[in-house]
């Protein structure tokens, strides 16, 4: 029988007069303006998909956040600095409060930097905050990209985001260099001189590139204003656009997550944006901002008044660029002095190879790696669960090898400091590093791969034999053995949810394919053997059940979602009772 239609009765009418919920004063106050906005731009509709969006939680996800927040600090502190900085190479006599330089001829750029440091209240704090934030920005981006690399987060569908990241890392390094060159001090001016020599050395177009960059001979009078434009306008604009795209893609793809119980490719488990994630992320922004401010307050950096204004005939021993340029500096110091003199031309390989080639190699390898690995594995599926680095030993080994090569170059960038601090021969350090740059990464590759496989073995051990309990039993025969207890189902799932990527034998069924296609496929298969032949296979369900049975630790792999660890403990007790 049909239900009677709902009728309006007096009760409902009375209820409609009073508000449904008692709202606090803030919400009441915000009600009016919010409605005004919503009437015009549909605020509710815009916020709906994001209000309770889920973000997984892990400390390693904070690295990208540190990069983002230090970038915001750079923008804010940078805006303040532009209020007082003068990007001009015109010569003036210094009349500020730093006595030791008073009366000296210097560029307006340098003088205004001294002004900010000594005569603007909070100026030195701002300068130091800005410089520390730049160092942290590049470091965070590099560490973040290492995390992305080692967890395989660059795999489909995130390859574009990886490329955006490589671009941002490049731009960050460029902006750091242009930034610290702006004060036109002795140290950064020396760096600019290096860049002048580098540009000049490019075969065929070098002098043209040099004259176009410096508007004539070095140093000229336009390089500082030009670097200023690049530093405050061009690169920040590009970075802002790329950051927006980078974050938009993270929102679209949803964040990746580490493997764990309940976490599958098709879901994302975590906390909602409001209130938890917003509080944590917003709080973390303030923490990063606070730490950078404290660094600017307590840790001196770039004391340009000690260096003095740029003078092309002066230099200080132990001159070093900012840390992120260290690997290029190392390359240029370690490179043998190869130069071709062909007829009346000079081909300066000693400068062009490390100067351009290294940067190109570093960023180029970073950029193509996802596509190389995708080609090798032939994997076309989407990946949203992160890899544990040990489960892809070859990739991890490549990453560590790259880090090692980078480190060798970085140490090379300070070869004179290594020599003076450790009382070793400068020449020996240089010759050693020339070899180490090639040999150390190979050693690192081999060692890392074995360590990863070792870790996979220990995972397998845990799966099949359980965890060590710390309790030692002594058998009547006198033999000692450590008792093992079963691991939780959650952990067992985590240890075995990854994919076994196959090492393929050469193809035999090659009908219907061109010679070129066959060759390519055989090459790919050879690559899979290189990548995966040593990787441990996961234990099969049969092996796990057999091992559990053997150890009298029955893990019920019935897939009903319930945990059976407690039952296993009971079984253990039975075992003890025997």
């Amino acid at each position, binding site marked *: 029988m049909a239900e009677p239609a709902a009728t309006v009765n007096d009760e409902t009418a009375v209820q409609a007069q009073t508000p449904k919920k008692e709202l606090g004063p803030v919400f009441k106050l915000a009600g009016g303006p919010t409605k005004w906005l919503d009437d015009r731009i549909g605020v509710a509709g815009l916020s709906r998909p994001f209000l309770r969006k*889920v973000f997984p939680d892990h400390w390693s996800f904070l690295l990208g956040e540190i990069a983002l927040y230090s970038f915001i600090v750079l923008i804010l502190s940078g805006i303040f600095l532009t209020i007082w900085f003068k990007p001009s190479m015109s010569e003036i006599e210094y009349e500020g409060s730093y006595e030791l330089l008073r009366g000296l001829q210097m560029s307006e750029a340098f003088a205004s930097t001294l002004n900010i440091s000594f005569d603007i*209240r909070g100026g*030195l704090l701002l300068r130091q905050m800005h410089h520390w934030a730049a160092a942290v920005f590049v470091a965070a981006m590099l560490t973040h990209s290492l995390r992305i690399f080692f967890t395989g987060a660059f795999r*489909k569908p995130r390859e574009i985001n990886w490329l955006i990241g490589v671009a941002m890392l490049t731009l960050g390094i460029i902006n750091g260099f242009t930034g610290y060159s702006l004060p036109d001090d002795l140290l950064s001016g020396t760096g600019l001189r*290096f860049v*002048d*020599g580098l540009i000049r*050395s490019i075969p065929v*177009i070098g*002098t043209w590139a040099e*004259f*176009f960059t410096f*508007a*004539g*001979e*070095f140093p000229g009078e336009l390089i500082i204003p030009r670097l200023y434009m690049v530093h405050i306008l061009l690169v920040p604009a590009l970075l802002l656009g790329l950051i927006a795209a980078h974050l938009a893609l993270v929102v679209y*793809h*949803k964040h990746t997550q580490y493997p764990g119980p*309940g976490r*599958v490719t*098709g*879901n994302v*488990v975590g*906390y909602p944006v409001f209130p*938890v994630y917003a*509080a*944590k992320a*917003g*709080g973390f922004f303030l*923490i990063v*901002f*606070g*730490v950078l*401010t404290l660094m*600017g*307050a*307590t840790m001196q950096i770039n004391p340009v008044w000690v260096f003095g204004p740029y003078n*092309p*005939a002066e230099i200080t021993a132990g*001159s070093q660029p900012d840390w992120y340029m260290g690997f290029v*500096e190392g390359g240029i*110091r*370690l490179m043998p*002095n190869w*130069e071709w*003199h062909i007829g*009346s*031309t*000079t081909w*300066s390989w*000693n400068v062009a190879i490390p100067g351009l080639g290294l940067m190109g190699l570093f960023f180029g390898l970073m950029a193509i790696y996802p596509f190389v690995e995708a080609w090798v594995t032939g994997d076309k599926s989407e990946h949203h669960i992160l890899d544990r680095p040990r489960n892809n030993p070859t990739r991890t080994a490549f990453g560590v090898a790259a880090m090692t090569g980078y480190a060798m170059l970085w140490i090379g960038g300070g070869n*004179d400091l290594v020599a003076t601090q450790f009382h070793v021969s400068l020449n020996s350090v*240089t010759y050693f590093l020339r070899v180490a740059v090639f040999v150390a990464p190979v050693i690192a590759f081999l060692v890392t791969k074995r360590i990863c496989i070792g870790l996979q073995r220990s995972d397998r051990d845990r799966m099949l034999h359980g965890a060590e309990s710390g309790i030692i039993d002594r058998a009547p025969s006198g033999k000692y053995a450590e008792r093992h207890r079963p691991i939780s*189902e959650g952990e067992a799932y985590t*240890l*075995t*949810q990854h994919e076994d990527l196959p090492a393929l034998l050469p193809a035999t069924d090659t009908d219907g394919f061109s010679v070129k296609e066959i060759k390519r496929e055989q090459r790919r298969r050879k690559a899979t053997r290189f990548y995966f032949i040593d990787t441990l296979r996961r234990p099969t369900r049969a092996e796990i059940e057999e091992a559990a049975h053997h150890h009298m630790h029955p893990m019920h*792999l019935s*897939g009903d*979602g319930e945990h059976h660890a407690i039952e296993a403990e009971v079984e253990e007790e039975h075992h003890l009772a025997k």
Partner: protein
Amino acid sequence: MSEDTSHGHPGTEVATVDEERYPVPDPGLEEHLPRLTDVDEKAADRATRQVATFFGLVPILSIGFVVVYFAVPGDAWVDFGPLRANSRNLLLGLTFGLALLFLGIGAVHWARKLMDDKEMIDYRHSAASSDDDKNYVLTELDKVVDESKITRRKIIGRTLLAALATILLPMIVGLADLGPWPTKKKRAETIERTIWAPGVRVVQDVTFKPIKPEDIEIGQLINGEPANLQELHGSEFQIEKAKAAVIVVRMDPNTITIPPSREGWQIGGILCYSKICTHVGCPISLWEQQTHHLLCPCHQSTFDLGDAGKVVFGPAARPLPQLPITTDAEGYIVAQRDFLVPPGPSYFERDSRHDSP
């Protein structure tokens, strides 16, 4: 036996189904364990007080910043053992920095201890567009192309392509005045010459005092400049200095090799070399008296000044150019002429066949 946890969302259902892919099936989300602050009211109150304290300190620190800004003089110093800091800078940074830090810590503490920490599940969608969207777009695009009439009137497309390809040309060509063009003539006027000329005195850097040979001892190095550098100012001064800077060294003639062609370039063991490294242009002056080696501090190129400035170590590829010197009527050291080769870093059009004697 196995349940489908997919809720209709693709990619979620396989966890419990495929035995080979998942030897251990997904046991589902772990049980949510309450935090101490969830069960213990006293602990929650304590956490609340902590958050409120962190937030409460921020106004105090912010006002402290303002007080320091106006009250602390700029020349006040504070010592920490061997370290010394400007008081105002330090206090401004501590107040502002701690204010930011406490605000952040308070927010994070609030989230971690008090806010509901039950994990939520959201479901992913495939990164690719739906078939529906793809079909719609392809169909409509076909219509778009048809409606534009470009396929029928192919010449529109061809001329459009040519137009678009060339419209950027004005913008690119507009960059051609970024700097003077380094033609052969321009190079000869700029990077291939310096202000050294016959009779120009070699003077000390900074003081511009002229130098007499008898005032130089064996083993000594003097940083030198051309006397006519003083007439220049601003960027012209810097440009010429970057090419013309020299060093004057005195060595025992019996311990060095002077090539026959350069016998007349020196004054009894006093030689003058370019100070600008032939690697990438840093000014060199780490002088090793015993070995006669000159070490560049930038990338450690080492030149043997007792052997025509030959490179003995490091990445520099060409010897250090030598400036022929003599004495003038009053006995001061002067240049005989400009350098015979362009000093400074290499470039493509440089004829490097005449650098060695």
